[in-house]
């Protein structure tokens, strides 16, 4: 049993998954905030690997990744900072990054280095399951879960196909769209989740657009975990080194999903 599946073994506890961009606003901040996330009740940390063309992301994460690239962040630096975070926190760490930098680094070497750094999973928004068998193989070899996505418009056949190959948990997109703060979910979110539940026992986590305690509570009621990204990045924007706003926000979210 790896660290990710352990998260979902705790009776009734809903997982809180937090995204931050490595190197935004600085590498030091990434390491500090990762500890803060773990202390504030997060169960999994998603560490973003910045990419020049983040086409599944909205403006907030686009800007954060752009800034991180200006700060000179590379895949190598992401791995090094993950290793530092791993020494401080015990919860699962997953990388969220687009395919090309990983391909360029070399799928096999990337998975080996992830494993050494203490990374538990990979979320690659532009890689549908099965499209790159070499990466699946390397990840499997090194015990790293590649997290699959499903969307409200996924067909039943597709849900079955993806769920059959999935590891760790399944990332359910709350709306058709890109990442970013939003007010509402897809109208048929409940039905969508039910369709996925029918074919898999894997934990289901909802992401994209979740930014308030109310939304988080709603999502937690339907699924096993809640993923928050853009709102966290926004709360890191105001350069307050104590990250009080972020800490308060996470407290609220934790409280709301614990119901």
């Amino acid at each position, binding site marked *: 049993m790896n660290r990710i599946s352990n998260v979902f073994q705790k009776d009734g506890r809903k997982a809180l998954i937090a995204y931050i961009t490595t190197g935004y606003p600085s590498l030091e901040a990434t390491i500090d905030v990762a500890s803060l996330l773990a202390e504030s009740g997060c169960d999994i940390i998603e560490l973003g690997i910045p990419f020049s063309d983040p086409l*599944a992301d909205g403006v907030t994460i686009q800007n954060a990744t752009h800034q991180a690239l200006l700060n000179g962040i590379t895949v190598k630096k992401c791995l090094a900072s993950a290793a530092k975070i791993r020494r401080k926190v015990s919860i699962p760490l997953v990388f969220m990054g687009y395919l090309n930098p990983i391909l360029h680094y070399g799928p096999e070497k990337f998975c080996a280095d992830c494993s050494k750094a203490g990374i538990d999973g990979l979320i690659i928004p532009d890689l549908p399951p099965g499209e790159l068998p070499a990466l699946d193989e390397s990840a499997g070899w090194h015990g790293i879960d590649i997290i699959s996505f499903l969307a409200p418009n996924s067909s039943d056949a597709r849900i079955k196909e993806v769920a059959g190959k999935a590891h760790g948990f399944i990332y359910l997109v709350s709306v058709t769209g890109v990442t970013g703060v939003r007010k509402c979910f897809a109208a048929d979110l409940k039905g969508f989740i039910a369709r996925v539940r029918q074919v898999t026992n894997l934990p289901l986590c909802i992401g994209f657009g979740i930014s308030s305690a109310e939304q988080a509570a709603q999502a937690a009621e339907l699924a096993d975990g809640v993923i928050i990204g853009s709102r966290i990045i926004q709360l890191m924007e105001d350069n307050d080194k104590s990250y009080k706003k972020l800490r308060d926000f996470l407290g609220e979210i934790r409280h709301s999903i614990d119901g």
Partner: protein
Amino acid sequence: MLPDEKGYYGPYGGRFVPETLIPALDELTAAYRGIQDDKDFWSRLETLAHDYSGRPTPLYFAEMLTRHCGGAQIYLKREDLAHTGAHKINNALGQGLLAQRMGKQRIIAETGAGQHGVATAAVCAMLGLKCVIYMGEEDVRRQSLNVFRMKLMGAEVHSVSSGSRTLKDAINEAIRDWVTNVGDSYYLIGSVVGPHPYPLMVRDFQAVIGRETRRQVLEKCSRLPDYIVACVGGGSNAIGIFHPFISETEIKLIGVEAAGDGIDTGRHAASLARGKPGVLHGAMSYLLQDSDGQIMETHSISAGLDYPGVGPEHSYYKDGHRAEYMTVDDRECLEAFQLLCKLEGIMPALESAHAVAHAVKLARTLDKDRIIVINLSGRGDKDTGIVADALGVTL
């Protein structure tokens, strides 16, 4: 016949997209398969290609240019004479009809030079579809005439200010729109790039260029050409004219990429010449990327070639040596632009002027009985301001 079932040309192509787009690509693939044997669809497309776009476009013997070079005979495939001024209309018309058949009411498209944007806007106006165009801020500035043309035809034009503010960023934004509005919107991509089935579909709609060329060159010369030269950004006009000749390996196919400030300056857009395989905009293909796999900014005087990727089928032909890929820089492109104006009274698009520049160099080295066909993919009216600027002329 390539691509395979999953959209691969050897190791290139595929579908590297967010999961939300998979149902849309499945739907599109099924719809495209559905029209293969639909005679009504193809006869409607043919009628519109004839009556609306003005096809077939002529094959013109460029006698003055040929004499100037003193070598091979040069023929121009006059896509510049197609409606809206470039070959882009062939694809816009085909996909527009397909979108309409699929019941999609809202069309999204990206554009670099604005040629694909104008073609899409025209087709949408004619078919009564809503049209949303994404265009990099830098391109909006340098191709303002085309922006105005799109707006006159009823399109909504969004200026994209992220990244390098050119074609690549316009595609990112178009894909974000598509992911968000995937239910009612159709993404009408303008080149042989993107996830499967786009490279296949766009190639098929552009192959009309090559089919006509074959017939016309046989009529005029009683034989097939020795060389076919076309510019390559994403590569749709090149694939269009190459494709019907692929199996005749004695015919040399030459794609010409933009070398910008010079191929060794690092400021160019020559993905095949200097890129490495990677994934951008949904497909595996040659890509200009840095040592960390980040996509590089490109440079070319021609907005339509200013793109860090290239169609997967071109990557496949490069590796298999079925086509040869050369480069032409901004300076050579400007010279060819002026040369064709002076000698033939034809103003090529800056994109197409890259092909002219290479063909002129090539013709000089060949005997007079050799035949070169240049795909003159677009007309240059849109570029007069840029050329004037480059020549230091104030209009």
